[in-house]
């Protein structure tokens, strides 16, 4: 039994302009102690999938129209809200992108951390506070005891994200979802925060879903990658294999658009065009208008997830050519 198994998940949003199909049949699994990186542009459905797993999707306008989310063997979507609430924060936790806006500006960090223990474990004010200080020390915030009464705006960006991480780790959950945890940080701090996260994950053998659009971050920490495009997974693979030989033109486009030192002075490769509107996803393969390999069949037939190898899948009709062309 996997720690988390998302099966054929569909999520849509009702908007004034029509129905936005944000997630269209996404499946992935995360094992205990494993890191899954979910890669994709804004609007690819990576965050929406995660929010559906956490159960924090805004409904309405959001609606889960199909699929299952199995967490430790139980289908979360069929659980009553009260039971899901108890799982949230204690068994699975989420780290958000912008710690400044994600922490409550008018409550002290100590209160916000202690709240986890008070609500889920029924600890008293004092005891919960002491645990909050321990947590802050654990994520290496200097002078934790003095700073426990400070407000979020009094911390630096890196320290704030550490507090977010501490809050997620408070009850030692089995699964952590980190939604672009380093995007809002300085490059120098990004590595520190990622290292801390990876270290704590090993310590507690948690499953980690790392949502990002930063390919550099992924390479170091992830075990496997799921690449998403227009609400669908287009490729899944172990990290090393994916970097060596992408099996989907979109993945290849992403990898090619990483600036490299040995290409100094040359023009940067980019993927042409824009991601499709979720209100109007092109028929066939959603990537076909931007794909350099697109042929007639790509515009009519939606590719299934082909089995490339035991651990790899690609949603490209011509995945074999991807390997031949090298």
């Amino acid at each position, binding site marked *: 039994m996997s720690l988390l198994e998302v099966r054929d998940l569909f999520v849509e949003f009702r908007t004034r302009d029509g129905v936005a199909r944000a997630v269209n049949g996404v499946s992935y699994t995360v094992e205990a102690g494993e890191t899954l990186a979910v890669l994709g542009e804004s609007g690819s459905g990576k965050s929406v999938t995660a929010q559906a797993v956490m159960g924090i999707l805004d409904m309405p306008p959001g609606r889960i129209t199909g699929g299952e989310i199995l967490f430790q063997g139980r289908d979360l979507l069929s659980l009553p809200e009260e039971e899901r*609430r108890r799982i949230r924060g204690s068994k699975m936790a989420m780290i958000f992108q912008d710690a400044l*806006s994600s922490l409550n500006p008018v409550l002290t960090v100590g209160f916000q951390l202690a709240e986890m223990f008070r609500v889920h474990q029924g600890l008293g004010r004092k005891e919960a506070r002491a645990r909050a200080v321990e947590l802050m020390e654990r994520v290496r915030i200097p002078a934790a005891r003095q700073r426990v009464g400070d407000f979020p705006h009094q911390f630096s960006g890196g320290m704030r994200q550490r507090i977010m991480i501490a809050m997620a780790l408070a009850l030692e959950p089995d699964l952590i979802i980190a939604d672009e945890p380093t995007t809002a940080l300085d490059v120098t701090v990004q590595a520190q925060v990622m290292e801390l996260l990876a270290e704590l994950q090993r310590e507690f053998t948690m499953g980690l879903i790392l949502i990002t659009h930063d390919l550099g971050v992924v390479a170091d920490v992830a075990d496997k990658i799921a690449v998403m495009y227009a609400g669908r997974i287009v490729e899944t693979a172990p990290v090393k294999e994916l970097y060596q030989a992408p099996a989907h033109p979109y993945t290849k486009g992403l990898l090619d658009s990483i600036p490299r030192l040995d290409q100094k002075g040359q023009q940067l490769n980019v993927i042409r065009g824009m991601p499709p509107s979720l209100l109007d996803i092109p028929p066939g393969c959603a990537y076909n208008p931007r794909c350099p390999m697109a042929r007639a069949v790509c515009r009519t037939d939606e590719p299934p997830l082909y089995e490339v190898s035991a651990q790899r899948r690609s949603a490209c009709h011509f995945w074999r050519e991807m390997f031949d062309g090298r």
Partner: protein
Amino acid sequence: MGRYVVRRLLQMIPVFIGTTFLIFVMVYAVGDPVNAMFGERAPDPATAEQLREEFNLDKPIWQQYVLYMGNIFTGDFGNAFNGQPVTELMATAFPITIRLAALAIVFEILVGITLGVLTGLRRGRPIDSGVLMLTLVVISVPTFVTGSLAQYLLGVKWGWISPAVSPAAPLRELLLPGLVLALVSLAYVTRLTRTSIAENARADYVRTAVAKGLSRRRVTVRHLLRNSLIPVVTFLGTDVGNLMAGALVTERIFNIHGVGFQLWQGIVRQNSPTVVGFVTVLVIVFLLANLLVDLLYAVLDPRIRYA
């Protein structure tokens, strides 16, 4: 913080002098208070002269003002023309109006904020549209209409309450007048809270609170409400002054002998010391209420620091 308060208090001095001087000039320059005392009859010139001297009315206006202010700071607000000390009038009037205004504020907080939260969380649903429409009606209808109507229906026609408040004005009798006084502000508080709640409900920290596995109630009360109340508190603070002065209409309708009633009597009878005295105190109430709001800001929002 301490320095900020001192600075604010110092800034109040010119504002205080400016406003009181203006009122002083307006009250004393318009009409002859001595003539007004005698009503229809022409006063005996010698007596009039003596009275003018007694009340400093023979001196230039600026000098009158300085003398008056000097006396105020010794706690002497002068005597009304009938010989009764103005402070005595205040001692009976202010407690009544304070009770009335406090009651109104309580209504605004309890009813206004509750309705605001309910509608803010259910935007676009029937309860939201219904309350919104109701607030619009309340805001559009002047207090003297709602007041008179409530008095007629509840007091006269159905006899649920006594239509006039007795001179002692016990809290029980002030319930309806308090509600009438609060009504317009209450509608504003509802709308303000609603907007603020709806806006903050989409904030990232609310999503975090939900992700922490907190109950709906705790998310709303601990995380959402606290942030949403900042603009509401500002409004309530400034409303304290408005309610005290604005109780005039309500106090007239229900025959409450409070500040508004005394002010009105003072104006009608050209009883200048009464008018100036009461308004001076109201100015101080306004200024202090505003300072209090600014200080409360820092308590509610720790990002605001005063230096």
